[in-house]
């Protein structure tokens, strides 16, 4: 087993939310078309550099979305999927909902970044429903994003409040999409999911061996 900590890049401390967002941002290839989910993934936009020329999509009908609007720039006809007023960048375009979801569902977005309750070793994503019997369900565009984007990056804490790992062999929460997640960015490590199973690209304030003790799926060090 190729599980020696020396094989994996690591930093001394766990990442905070902002550091994690910065890391995700730096990993997005220049020129990409990207959809950032509601909540933590939205932070990624603060760390995208202009020279990356990343174009942001919002599923309510816009490409070329700019930062959150403030003060006089607030326009209630210009909001993002979280219903927060945003701005328009040069080169933006507007389109209706079916065209917007066709863009997602047709595989045209390079990356979407989503939060998660759980991700399975096979890339199943659970992020829409706690499964609680009395919960009022709501799905929004999560299933379309999970299924449609070329790459699905998940941002989440690696462990739930009860200490259980959120990277699991099989999701116990209702799934959003099957075999769709390609990367998981957590406060303790970055995981790459694929045909070779779950690979650890880097760790933060921990080692691969320590992670393997706490995460119930086989982990290997990512090559190169």
């Amino acid at each position, binding site marked *: 087993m190729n599980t020696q900590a020396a094989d994996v890049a690591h930093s001394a401390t766990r990442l905070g939310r902002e550091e994690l967002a910065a890391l995700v941002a730096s990993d997005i290839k220049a020129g990409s078309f990207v959809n950032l989910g509601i909540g933590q993934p939205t932070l990624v936009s603060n760390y995208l550099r202009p020279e990356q020329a990343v174009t942001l999509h919002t599923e309510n009908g*816009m490409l070329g979305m700019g930062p959150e609007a403030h003060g006089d720039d607030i326009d*209630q006809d210009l909001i993002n999927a979280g*219903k927060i007023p945003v701005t328009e960048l040069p080169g933006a375009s507007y389109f209706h909902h079916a065209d917007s979801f066709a863009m997602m569902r047709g595989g045209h977005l390079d990356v979407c970044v989503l939060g998660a309750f759980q991700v399975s070793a096979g890339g199943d994503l659970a992020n829409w429903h706690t499964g609680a019997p009395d919960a009022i369900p709501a799905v929004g565009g999560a299933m379309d994003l999970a299924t449609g984007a070329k790459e699905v990056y998940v941002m989440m804490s690696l462990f739930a409040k009860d200490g259980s790992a959120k990277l699991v062999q099989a999701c116990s929460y209702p799934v959003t999409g099957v075999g769709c997640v390609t990367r998981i960015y957590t406060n303790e490590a970055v995981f790459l999911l694929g045909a070779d199973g779950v690979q650890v690209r880097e760790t933060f304030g921990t080692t691969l061996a320590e992670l393997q003790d706490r995460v119930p799926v086989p982990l290997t060090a990512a090559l190169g």
Partner: protein
Amino acid sequence: MPIIANSAAESVAGIGDNSTVLIGGFGNAGQPMELIDALLDGGATGLTVVNNNAGQGDAGLALLIKERRVRRIICSFPRQPDSWHFDAAYRAGEIELELVPQGNLAERIRAAGAGIGGFFTPTGFGTMLAEGKETRVIDGRGHVYETPIHADFALIKALTADRAGNLIYRKTARNFGPIMAAAAKASIVQVSNIVDTGGLDPEIVVTPGIYVNTIVRIPAAAPEREEARP
């Protein structure tokens, strides 16, 4: 040629009990608030409503639900911090919910307008929302069979109409408007401005007039609307 109604009340007067009504808007953007208010005042009940959400706060669709006029709602995201009227109706078993992934919602509405009898999509495959649905593996990938959402009426908000019913929208307020206009037997549209036929450049028309039955001019939102927003 569409009818140009004198008031929101007049424009929705034809909506009877048990109608299926598509309601545009995503959040407040594109939400035809005055048409919804008129529908509430008109008294129609037993409605099936299609909207991305299930009402927010104490306005519009939320009030229709509060008054138990909505028998059934088809939407993607009913649960919101301020969706208390839906929450109460749902927990009381007094509203039927069909929860649909947002892209399937949009595509099903588009299919109704486009004469598509049904389609296969990967979205939702392997999830709770596909339980009981027909599935098919296409090119090695699981797909779910989805059907069109036809409706009697659509309530839509656009920016400007010409007298031929051609519409343009504003920014992300466009959202569901164009596909809902095409999917309903009759589309009722509130606009900020009405211009003469020929007043819109044919290259920039988003909804052709063929999809529009009734237009009513509602001047752009007054400042107090801002405060009503969550």
